[in-house]
C-alpha cells in the first residue's frame, strides 16, 4: 500500500527536466526545454514576481517616494551589503535580499548582491551585452592562469546569434575582434560631448575604440509584443513596456506559452539526489522556504542555473557516498577560482563648450571602450589581460551647483538650466582566476532553513592592483587629448563582489581532475547534470557576461536533448 502511494507521489513529482533558478540562465534553460516539448520544472528559491503586474514601482513619479528615492540610514544599517549596489533605492529595494535573512561569512571583504524572486537579477541587471572574443577563450592557455577552455569562440558563435535574435540586443556592428559583432537591433547614439571624445581620443589612440554601448534595451519591437524601449531609464524597477530583456519579460513567458512549464516559487533546492547504482542524478530535494517542508522532485536531466555562488553551494551541499566533497567534485576544484570584475577605478571630468547641444530622453546606455590592453600589438609588462570601460557624458543639472554661491531669482534660474558637460566612466577589469580565491560551506553557521552558509574568501591580487594603476593613467590621457578638464581618476578600493559579475567556482575544462564540467557545461562524472551560469566560466574576459550565460545555456540544452535521444543521458 505504502509503496503504491509512494509511486503515485513519485510520478506526480516527476518531470522531464528540472531547472534550478529562474534568472538569466534558468529562464533560457526553461524556454529551450519547454520549446522542445520537455515537461519542465523550474524551481525558484524566492517568491513570485510576475511580469508587469508586480512592477509596483515602475510608474511612480520620483517625488512620490517617501524619501524621494533616497536610502534611509536605518535601511542602510540593516542592509550594509545590498545597499552598496548602485541600483538599490526606494524603487528597487524590494528586489534585493535582506542581508540579515541570507547570511554568509566574509573571510575577506566580498559584497554578495542577490535578488531572490522569479527572474532573479535579470530584472535589475545593467543590460550590457558583449560577446567574448576569440582571444578570451585562449587567454588561460596563453598566460598559464586558470585552465584551458574546452571550447573556442567558433563553438559559441552560433549560439550567441541564436540568443541575441530572441533577446533583442541593440548595438552597432563595429567590426572589433575584442567584441565580435552580433545580431543587433538598431544602435543608440553618442551625444555631442561623447562624439567629440571619440573623435579626438581615437585620433591620438587609434586602438582605443569608443563605441555606443550594446544593450538589451529594445530599440525596435521584439518577439511577442516586447518593447520598444521608451527611454525612461527606470529599467531597474522592471519595465511595464517590456523594453528590455529579462527572464520575466521574455524567456519565462515563452516557456509558459508551450504549456510545458511548471514554475514553483519559494523552493530552495537543498541538494541533487545521486543514485550510485545508476551512476547519475535522479532528482532534487527541495525545502519549502515558507513551511520548511522537504519534497523530492525527479527528472531525466537537471540544469543548475542558480547564479554562480548558489549553484556552487548546491553542488557542494550535494554529498553522497560517491561524492563526499560535493557532486562531481573529484578534482577538488569546486568552489575555487572565483572571479569578479574589477570596477575599482572611476573617472570624472568636465568639458567646456558644446553648450548649444543637448539631448532628449534618458538613454539607458552609454559609451563603451572595449579592451585594448594586451590585445593586438599592445603588450603590457606590468599586468596580464585587460579592461573595458563604460561611461557617459551628460549636461549637469542643479546638483552640480547646489551649494555654489548665490541666492534668489538668478541663482534659481541658473540651477534650472542645463549646465556644462560632465564625463563619468568606470572601468571593468578582468580578474585572474586563482585557486585560493574560493568559497566553501560553513556547517557551523546555518541559515534559517538549517542549511550551511558560504564562507567567501576572495581578494584582489597583484595583477588587479597593477591594472588599476594603468587605468588611472590611460583614461585621463584620453580625456586630456580631447580637451577635458578637472580630470579625476580614483580607486574606490571596493571589495570584489560588488561588480555583481561573480564567475568561476564550477569551471569547465578538458580534464576532469582540474575542472567540474566538460565543454557542454555537463558535469564530467554525472552526465545528466549541467551547470550553465557564471560559475562555469574558466575565465571571465573583460566583457559584461550575461549574454555568454544565455548562449552557453541554450547550447547546453541543445546538446542535452541530443544526448537524451542517443540514450547517453
Amino acid at each position: 500500500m505504502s509503496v503504491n502511494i509512494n509511486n503515485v507521489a513519485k510520478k506526480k513529482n516527476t518531470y522531464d527536466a528540472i531547472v534550478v533558478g529562474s534568472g538569466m540562465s534558468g529562464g533560457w534553460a526553461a524556454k529551450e526545454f519547454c520549446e522542445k516539448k520537455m515537461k519542465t520544472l523550474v524551481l525558484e528559491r524566492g517568491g513570485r514576481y510576475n511580469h508587469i503586474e508586480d512592477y509596483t514601482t515602475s510608474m511612480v513619479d520620483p517625488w512620490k517616494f517617501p524619501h524621494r528615492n533616497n536610502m534611509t540610514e536605518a535601511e542602510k544599517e540593516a542592509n550594509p551589503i545590498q545597499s552598496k549596489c548602485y541600483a538599490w533605492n526606494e524603487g528597487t529595494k524590494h528586489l534585493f535580499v535582506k542581508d540579515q535573512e541570507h547570511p554568509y561569512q566574509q573571510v575577506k571583504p566580498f559584497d554578495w548582491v542577490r535578488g531572490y524572486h522569479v527572474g532573479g537579477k535579470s530584472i535589475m541587471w545593467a543590460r550590457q551585452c558583449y560577446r567574448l572574443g576569440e582571444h578570451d577563450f585562449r587567454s588561460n592557455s596563453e598566460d598559464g592562469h586558470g585552465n584551458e577552455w574546452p571550447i573556442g569562440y567558433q563553438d559559441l558563435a552560433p549560439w550567441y546569434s541564436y540568443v541575441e535574435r530572441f533577446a533583442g540586443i541593440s548595438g552597432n556592428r563595429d567590426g572589433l575582434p575584442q567584441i565580435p559583432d552580433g545580431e543587433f537591433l538598431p544602435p543608440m547614439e553618442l551625444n555631442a560631448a561623447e562624439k567629440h571624445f571619440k573623435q579626438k581620443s581615437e585620433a591620438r589612440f587609434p586602438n582605443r575604440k569608443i563605441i555606443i554601448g550594446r544593450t538589451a534595451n529594445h530599440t525596435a519591437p521584439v518577439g511577442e509584443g516586447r518593447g520598444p524601449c521608451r527611454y525612461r531609464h527606470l529599467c531597474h524597477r522592471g519595465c511595464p513596456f517590456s523594453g528590455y530583456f529579462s527572464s520575466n519579460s521574455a524567456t519565462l513567458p515563452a516557456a509558459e506559452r508551450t504549456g510545458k512549464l511548471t514554475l514553483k516559487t519559494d523552493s530552495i533546492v537543498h541538494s541533487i539526489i545521486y543514485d550510485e547504482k545508476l551512476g547519475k542524478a535522479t532528482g532534487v530535494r527541495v525545502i519549502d522556504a515558507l513551511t520548511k517542508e522537504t519534497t523530492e522532485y525527479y527528472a531525466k536531466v537537471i540544469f543548475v542555473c542558480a547564479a554562480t555562488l548558489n549553484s556552487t553551494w548546491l553542488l557542494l551541499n550535494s554529498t553522497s557516498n560517491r561524492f563526499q566533497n560535493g557532486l562531481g567534485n573529484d578534482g577538488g576544484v569546486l568552489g575555487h577560482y572565483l572571479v569578479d570584475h574589477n570596477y575599482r577605478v572611476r573617472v570624472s571630468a568636465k568639458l567646456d563648450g558644446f553648450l548649444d547641444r543637448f539631448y532628449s530622453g534618458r538613454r539607458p546606455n552609454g559609451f563603451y571602450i572595449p579592451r585594448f590592453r594586451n590585445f593586438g600589438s599592445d603588450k603590457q609588462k606590468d599586468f596580464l589581460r585587460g579592461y573595458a570601460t563604460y561611461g557617459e557624458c551628460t549636461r549637469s543639472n542643479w546638483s552640480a551647483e547646489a551649494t555654489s554661491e548665490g541666492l534668489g531669482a538668478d541663482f534659481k534660474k541658473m540651477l534650472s538650466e542645463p549646465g556644462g558637460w560632465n564625463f563619468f566612466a568606470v572601468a571593468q577589469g578582468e580578474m585572474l582566476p586563482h585557486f585560493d580565491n574560493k568559497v566553501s560551506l560553513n556547517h557551523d553557521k546555518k541559515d534559517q532553513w538549517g542549511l550551511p552558509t558560504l564562507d567567501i574568501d576572495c581578494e584582489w591580487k597583484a595583477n588587479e592592483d597593477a591594472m588599476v594603476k594603468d587605468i588611472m593613467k590611460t583614461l585621463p590621457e584620453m580625456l586630456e587629448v580631447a580637451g577635458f578638464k578637472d580630470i579625476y581618476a580614483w580607486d574606490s578600493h571596493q571589495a570584489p563582489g560588488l561588480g555583481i559579475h561573480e564567475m568561476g567556482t564550477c569551471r569547465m575544462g578538458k580534464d576532469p581532475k582540474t575542472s567540474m564540467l566538460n565543454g557542454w557545461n555537463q558535469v564530467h562524472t554525472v552526465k545528466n547534470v549541467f551547470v550553465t551560469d557564471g560559475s562555469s566560466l574558466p575565465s571571465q574576459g573583460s566583457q559584461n557576461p550575461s549574454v555568454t550565460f544565455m548562449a552557453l545555456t541554450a547550447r547546453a540544452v541543445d546538446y542535452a536533448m541530443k544526448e537524451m535521444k542517443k540514450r547517453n543521458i
Partner: protein
Amino acid sequence: MNRREILQRLAVISGGMIIAPSALTALDHWKNPALALLPNAEKAPLLAEMADIIIPTTDTPGAKAAQVDQYILLMLKDCTPAAEVAKFWSGLQAFEDNFQKQYGTTFLVASADKRLEYLQKLDKGRDPFFVGFKGLAVAGYFTSEIGMTQAQAYLPLPGTYEADIPLKPGQKSWADYF
C-alpha cells in the same frame, strides 16, 4: 497625478497595451509621513523662510510652496547620519543666536532686507552650516513635484531618445531621476 490618469497615460503611450491595475497598487501604498510628527517640526517655519530666500517664487513657485522645510525635516530624521543631524541643529541654533545678537530680533520677525543681508553674508563667507543647509534646500526643491515639473522639464515617458540636438532657447534641464 492619480491612478486613473496614469493608467490612461500608459494606455496612450503603450498603444493600448493592457496593464494590470495591480501594477499600480503601490501608488496607494505611499502616503506622506505624518509631517507634524517630525522631530523639531516647530522649526519648519524658520526653515521655510530661509529656503525661500535661496529659491524664491519667480515665474515658478519657490521653496516654501514646494514644502522644502518638510523635506529637510524628513531627511534629517531618516536619511542623515546622527552626528550630522546633531551638527545641523546646533548650527541652526547658532544661526538664530547670531541673528538675534546682530539685529536684536528674531529671524522670523525681522524685515526681508535684514534676512537677505544676513544670508548673503553667510553665503559669501561660506559658513559651513549655511552651505550645508543650502545643499539640502536645493535638493529638496529640485526633487519636489514643483521643482521637477515646473522649475525643470519633466519627461515621464520620453518615448524616443535624441542623442544630439540643438539646445532650444529657454530650454530647462531635464528633471533627471532613477
